[in-house]
Structure formats: C-alpha cells, structure tokens
C-alpha cells in the first residue's frame, strides 16, 4: 500500500511541476513581456496610449463587431444545436461537419473568400454598385468577417452536451402542453446554460482578437475601419512599441474580465448551493475545485 501511495504522490508532484513549468514558460512569460513592455514608458504613457482618440475609436468598432456578432452567433449556435441533437434526419453528420468548416478555413483565405463574395468583382458587385452600397472596406465587412470566424463556437460547445441529454425532458414538457419556446426556456436552457456561457466567452474572445480576416477586408482607414488588433499593428509599425503593447494589454484585460465574470457567476451559483451538481458535470472550462 505504501508503494501505491508513494507513486500517486510522486505522480501528483510531477504533474504539478510540469504543469507549472509549462504554463509559466508558455503562457505567463509572454504575458509578462506584454505587461512589462506596456508599462515601459511609465503609467502616464500607458494611460495616454489607451485613452488616445484613435484607440477609443478602435475600441468602439471592436465592441460594435462583438455586439452584432454575439447575438447572431448565439442564436445560430442554439438553433443549430437544437436541430442537430433533438431530431434524426439524413445528412446530419454532413451538417455537423459543415458547422465546423469555418474553423478549418485559414483567416487569410477567409478574408480572400469574402472579397470574392462581396467585393467589387464579386457576385453581388454590380448589384451593390447600382445602389452605391459599399460593404467591403466598411464596418459591415468587419462584422461579416467576425461572424464567419466565430460561427462554430457556440454550436460546438452545445452539441455534445445536448446530445448527451437526449430529448426525454423536452418530450415530457411538450406532451404536458408546453409550447416550443416554453420548452426551450424552462427545460433546455437551464441544462445547457454553462456550456452556452462558455461558448459566449469563446465567441467574445475570438471576435475581439480576430486579425487575419479583418485585416484583409478592412481597408485600414484610420478612425473608421481600424479594430483594436489592427490598431495595435499600426502602432507597432510606427515604432510606438509602448502604446502597441499598452493596447494589447487592454485586450488582455478585456479577455481576463470575461473570464473573471465567468468565475464570478460560478462562485455565486456555488454559494447558492443548488447547482453544484450541474456545474461539476457540464461545464467544460471550470476548475474542479
């Protein structure tokens, strides 16, 4: 018995050490670089950089992209997951693979495809020209690119979970006379809310940080179509390293804020005590404590 206890302790230690070493080398060090560089010019330079009008404009545009993208892709994610898990039909696995497709498209190619799609020489080019509409190189283009790259995230989180849960509860509700919407809000949603929340966090994080596709489509018009990641690139190219890293740390902060918000919700519900079980079983991203 001593030996197995010894082994388990040793393996525990080894695992913890490797994890700590790996995480600090791979995640914490790059973070430290960003933070130390962004405060390289002192606190004042940092505050100047993040309160610069161009930064605020970029921040506004990034938020706009997130705010338009999020509800659309959440709606899509829920509906797609519902269709794929609550019914049986032909071509189901094909549809499931299609949802993952945007994920396998490199951002640069995604941008290129959207240019073919919406650009002057694209399919709708002549139509858009007739009405003097410019989608490409304007805010809508940035929103569409963001939509494209974040399509799979909510659905991806929901599908395995809803698959596992089956349809019995929903069927019971319907047979008791509940409408579809009632069924969804009172039966399905409570079961999937954690996975949904995680999907939302991923979507927000990804849409704030998207660079490749947006860069191909933006047109780089200063103050108009520059998102935060593009603004960082501009600052870096102007040898304004401190400001570039300061704005990056702002993005980092936003990402951390969403993660902290997630922890906060867990903690709050945990202290309520009632949903402990649900959380343990269904949340992909929460710590096991």
């Amino acid at each position, binding site marked *: 018995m001593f030996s*197995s206890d010894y*082994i*388990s302790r040793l*393996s*525990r230690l080894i*695992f*913890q050490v490797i*994890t700590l070493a*790996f*995480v600090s080398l*791979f*995640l914490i060090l*790059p973070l430290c*670089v960003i933070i130390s*560089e962004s405060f390289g010019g002192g606190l004042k330079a940092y505050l100047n950089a993040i309160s610069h009008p161009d930064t605020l404009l970029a921040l506004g545009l990034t938020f706009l992209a997130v705010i338009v993208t999020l509800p659309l892709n959440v709606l899509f994610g829920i*509906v*797609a997951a519902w*269709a794929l898990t*609550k*019914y*049986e*039909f032909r071509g189901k696995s094909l*549809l499931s*693979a299609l*949802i993952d*497709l945007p*994920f*396998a498209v*490199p*951002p*640069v*190619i995604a941008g*290129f*495809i959207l240019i*073919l*799609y919406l650009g002057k020489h694209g399919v709708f080019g002549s139509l858009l020209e007739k009405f003097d509409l410019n989608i490409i190189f304007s805010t809508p283009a940035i929103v*569409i690119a963001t939509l*494209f790259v974040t*399509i799979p995230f909510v659905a991806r989180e929901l599908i395995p979970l809803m698959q596992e849960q089956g*349809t019995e509860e929903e*069927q019971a509700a*319907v047979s008791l006379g509940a409408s*579809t919407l009632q069924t969804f809000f009172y039966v399905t949603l409570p079961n999937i809310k954690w996975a949904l929340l995680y999907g939302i966090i991923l979507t927000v994080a990804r849409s704030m*940080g998207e*660079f*490749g596709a947006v860069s*191909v489509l933006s047109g780089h018009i200063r103050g108009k179509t520059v998102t935060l*990641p593009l603004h960082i690139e501009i600052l870096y190219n102007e040898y304004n390293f401190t400001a*570039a890293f300061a704005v*990056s740390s702002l*993005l*980092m902060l936003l*990402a951390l804020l969403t993660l*902290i918000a997630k922890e906060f919700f867990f903690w709050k519900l945990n202290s309520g005590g009632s949903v402990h079980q649900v959380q*343990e*079983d269904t*949340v992909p*991203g929460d*710590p*096991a404590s």
Partner: protein
Amino acid sequence: MKKTGSQNHFLPGFGLSLGFTLVYLSLLVLVPLSLLSFRALSLDGTLYRDIFQDPRTLAAFKLTFASSFIAAGLNLIFGFIVAWTLVRFPFPGCSFIDALIDLPFALPTAVSGIALTSLYVRSGMVGRYLDIFGIQVAFAPLGVVVALSFISLPFVIRSLQPALKDIEREYEEAAISLGASPISVFFAVIFPAIRPALLTGFSLAFARALGEYGSVVFISGNMPMKTEIISLLIAGRMEQFDYDGATALAAVTLLASFMILLSIHLIQWHYSRKIQPRS
C-alpha cells in the same frame, strides 16, 4: 410546427430550426466557399502543375503541415498533463491558470507573435539560455512550432477537461491496488476513455495551426524554402495581384486541410461505432 414523416420528430420546431441553420450556414459559409471552389475549378490546370513543381511552394507546404502536426501533437502531451493536473491535482492558484488557458485565444495573433519573438530571439529572456545549447527558436522552423503550439493550446485542454472529469476514479484505483503500473493504467483505463476528446482536440488544434498567419510571420523569419508558411505565400500572391495563383494555392490548402480533418472525423466515427454496440 411541421410534421415530417419520421417518428423521431416528437418535438416541434424541426423545420424552423433546420431551415434557419441551413440558411445561415449557406449565406455565410457555403456560398462563399463554393465561390472559391467554382473559381478554383475554372482556373487553368497549369497553375496547379506549377504549384506542385515549385520547390518554394512545396517547401512551404511541408513546413506548414509538419509544424502544425508537431504543434498539435506536442499540445496533446502537454495539454493532457495540464488538464489532468487541473482536474485531479488542483493546487492553490489553479483556477487562475485555468482562466489563463483561454488567453492565446483572445490575444490578437500578431501580439502573441511579437511577444513570443521577443522571448525566443537570441537576446531574449528564454532565447538567451537556449542559445547556450545552440538551439535557435526565433527565425527557425522551431519558432513556427512554438507559435503554433501557443495559439492552439486552448483547444486541446478545453476538449480534454470535460472528458477527464467524467472518468470514474474507482477504476484506476482498483487497477493500481491490483498492482498495475501507472503507465499500464493510463493505456488500459484512461486512454480509451479520453480518445475521442484527444482526437477532437488534436483536429481542432491542427486546423487552427494550419491557417495561422499573424503570429508566425513575426517569429519565423520568412526564409524561402526554410521558414515560409503557406498563408504567407497566399498573402504574397494577393499583394502581387496574382489572384489566380492565390486562388489555386488557397484551394489546394483548403482541400488538404479538409481531407485531414475528414479522416480524423472518420477515425472518430470508427471508434464510436466500435464502442456503441457494447454499451
């Protein structure tokens, strides 16, 4: 509410939800993608021949696929260790690390690239020590692997965590108390249980790594034949107004990455078929 033939459709809303899914996907994904394939198919065949004859392009293909494969593989190993520690051996500060895992996801890739480059360059914090052993990371193929591992790390860990939580501890404990070594426990008990999650994590990480551009251009050094990736070649073709060349390259890349993802899907399907009848 629409009744379709199958008896599975107890629940209302099938037509609506499927219809919405299809329309949304078609507008945003299918139509644009089929445009690309249409354009790619109407190109002159010699363009494709040139791609496979140009040593620079071939080298870029080799590098992109090999380094994505290695990065995804490395992430499987380290991702497993990190996920296992987070699930089984929590320690103070664990939840902070858990929160950090998503960070590569939220950082613009260019920022990750710049930060990694300043760490791994010859005079950098880490590169300085690696240089003693003659290991060059930044501006070498190894740098590409490092950048790709960084950006694809969350996918593996996030796929593994729920699967690891589901494993019943009793089986392992029973196996260990019966005298099995930890390694044989891993292969007999743990590995089969997390195989689907490993495959998913691997394919997600691999797909993400294949398309990565922003971070790699900073750390790789973009040397022709040595550290140029496919996305750079595509971007370069576009900037030189060679749209046909860019389309052909993009089509070949997409096809290859779809094939690989499809085969991973098939492997997964194969295993799930094997397991289901037993349970």
